């Protein structure tokens, strides 16, 4: 439930893209929040609008072609979407930080790791008295940030170019960049998707510890159910541009209520080896003409006539667990 210590709140966000063929209605009323110190997961399959959501929060969506048709993104009560350019810069410098999926795209190939990291620290860090850091302090802070991510030999890494590092090392550099600042909210967009499992395990553990130390909040975007289970307390399940279910992570994964979440969980291959389910028939809708009402209804096994008329509101389906589905509308709230 929203309360006083809300850090980020997205209210009924609608984002579309104008393209040659027409208007892609991608986000259809995304509502989510992250409280101070909380770790939240945003889970969904390819093309469901996870990245569009994060980009809207950072305000790095290219406008045009993107258009925010309605909705608000509140960071500590201030609307990010209506923020002045200067205020936005301060927000990005001091409050928000992000890790993206592909470190090769988020690191500049023609500058050394050190020069990129120094720039970030110089721009975003101040001493307690509000003074700009000296060159030596910047250097020390950079090396410390790299060390914290478990990188061997940080002095040498500082003089390396991104291509000289392996995928896991590059992602550690991105984590170091993101966590070297004093930011309160970390937006992690599929930070370990490109990595091998043993490396993913190391990186996630490091990330987990660093976030703990700094007490920052995390919005973790991923398609891996296992990753959110290890790292987050609460999750949002997203399908075709809207939130279909939300609740405490472990509880939701153990007893999913929305038909989409149920289908998704049944499709995840398990270590218990009881075979694989049939999957979910059909595929994600075309955003040019999304189905009316609940966007999942063409693929839903429990489809009812009203599903194609109007999108269902969120109903309580368990302790703190809510699903956007007509199946649960009469359940006690």
């Amino acid at each position, binding site marked *: 439930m929203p309360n006083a210590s809300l850090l980020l709140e997205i209210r009924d966000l609608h984002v579309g893209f104008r393209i040659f063929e027409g208007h892609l209605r991608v986000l259809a009323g995304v509502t989510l929040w992250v409280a101070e110190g909380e770790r939240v997961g945003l889970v969904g*399959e*390819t093309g469901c609008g996870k990245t569009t959501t994060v980009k809207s929060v950072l305000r790095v969506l290219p406008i045009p072609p993107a258009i925010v048709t309605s909705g608000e993104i509140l960071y500590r009560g201030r609307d990010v979407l209506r923020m002045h350019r200067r205020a936005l810069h301060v927000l990005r410098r001091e409050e928000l930080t992000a890790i993206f999926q592909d470190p090769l795209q988020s690191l500049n190939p023609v500058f050394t790791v050190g020069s990129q990291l120094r720039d970030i620290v110089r721009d975003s860090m101040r001493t307690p008295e509000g003074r700009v850091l000296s060159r030596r302090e910047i250097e020390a802070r950079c090396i410390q940030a790299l060390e914290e991510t478990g990188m061997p030999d940080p002095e040498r890494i500082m003089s390396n170019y991104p291509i000289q590092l*392996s*995928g*896991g*090392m590059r992602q550690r550099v991105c984590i170091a960049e993101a966590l070297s600042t004093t930011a309160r909210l970390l937006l992690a967009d599929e930070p370990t998707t490109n990595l*091998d*499992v*043993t*490396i*993913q*395990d*190391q990186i*996630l553990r490091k990330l987990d510890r660093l976030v703990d130390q700094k007490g920052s909040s995390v919005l973790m975007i991923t*398609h*891996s*159910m*296992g*990753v959110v*289970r*290890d790292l987050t307390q609460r999750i949002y399940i997203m399908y075709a541009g809207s939130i279909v279910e939300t609740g405490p992570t472990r509880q939701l*994964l*153990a007893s999913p209520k929305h038909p989409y979440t149920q*289908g*998704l*969980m*049944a*499709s*995840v*291959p*398990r*270590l*218990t*080896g*009881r*075979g*694989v*389910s*049939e*999957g*979910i*028939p059909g*595929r994600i809708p075309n955003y040019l003409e999304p189905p009316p009402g609940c966007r999942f209804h063409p693929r839903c096994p429990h489809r009812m006539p009203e599903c194609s008329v109007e999108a269902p509101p969120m109903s309580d389906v368990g302790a703190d667990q809510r699903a956007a589905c007509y199946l649960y509308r009469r359940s006690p709230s």
Partner: protein
Amino acid sequence: MTEPILEARGLTKFFPTKRGTVRAVDDIDFRMAPGDTLGLVGESGSGKTTTAQCVVGIYAPTTGDILFHGQSIGATAAKRSKELKREIRIVFQDPGSSLNPKRTIKQILATPLAVHHLASGREQVARISALLERVELPPAEYLYKHPQSIGGGEKQMVAIARALATDPSFVVLDEPTSALDVSVQAKIINLLLGLQKEMGLTYLFITHDMSLMRNVASRVAIMYLGKLSEIANTAEFFQMPLHPYTKMLLSSIPVVSDEEESLKPAKGISRGEIPSPVNIPPGCSFHSRCPSRLDVCDKIDPATVEVAAGHVVRCHLYPGSQERTS
């Protein structure tokens, strides 16, 4: 074990480069019985794709041999007979780049039929429709579509249909679902398992997803830097993993329920980076990351030992492995 359909004997493939030799596959042995699904698991750069490509003849092995029904097939596809190429087929990881975007699905599926003189004219169209039906794509809807107008899962189904066009007995699946979402993956896996039963196929299934492997493979082989660390039957493999690398892999998998959590070996902390295959550490290639390394590990490469029937492991921790030095 029954007569193996495919056997690798000391299979080795090196690639010379300017910075030294890449030891992509280094002296591996495995046998597959008909109807088996051998899951080949490994991290990036472990040589699993190179192994698959040697089996289908994209590369000829540097040394060692591959036997198919007892016959040596260690040559590139250019030198293989057409009958052999009909028998061994491959499905690649990314259907977006393995299907020609300029051709319709009908043309894509007609190619293997024409090359192998299996069908032409009206019979060809009938065969293509039957193939599409086999992979659960209605032919009327899909015959004249181009790959870019269908979804990733459907593209992979077309790629599977293409592999099955020549009625093979052995199919190499090189990460067939790792580019796809789980709900689509589930569908493809079910389809593959159904086809295997129906057509009596043998699969060499390459993946990095251990949870998936648990559900599809009958035997699992773990590869690390070009060598096989451990091979065992699936149930035994997951109940009693022996090699420290296997334990590290298993404990690193993110799982979604408490029940699975209890199946994972005690949290072996994964550490270290995967060394470059150009510069493989001496002795056992895993020693730099191994939590239970011994003094011999960085000097002598362990030999493979059969610790139980069909359970082979390559590690100094298991007695008998010191006998052979590298």
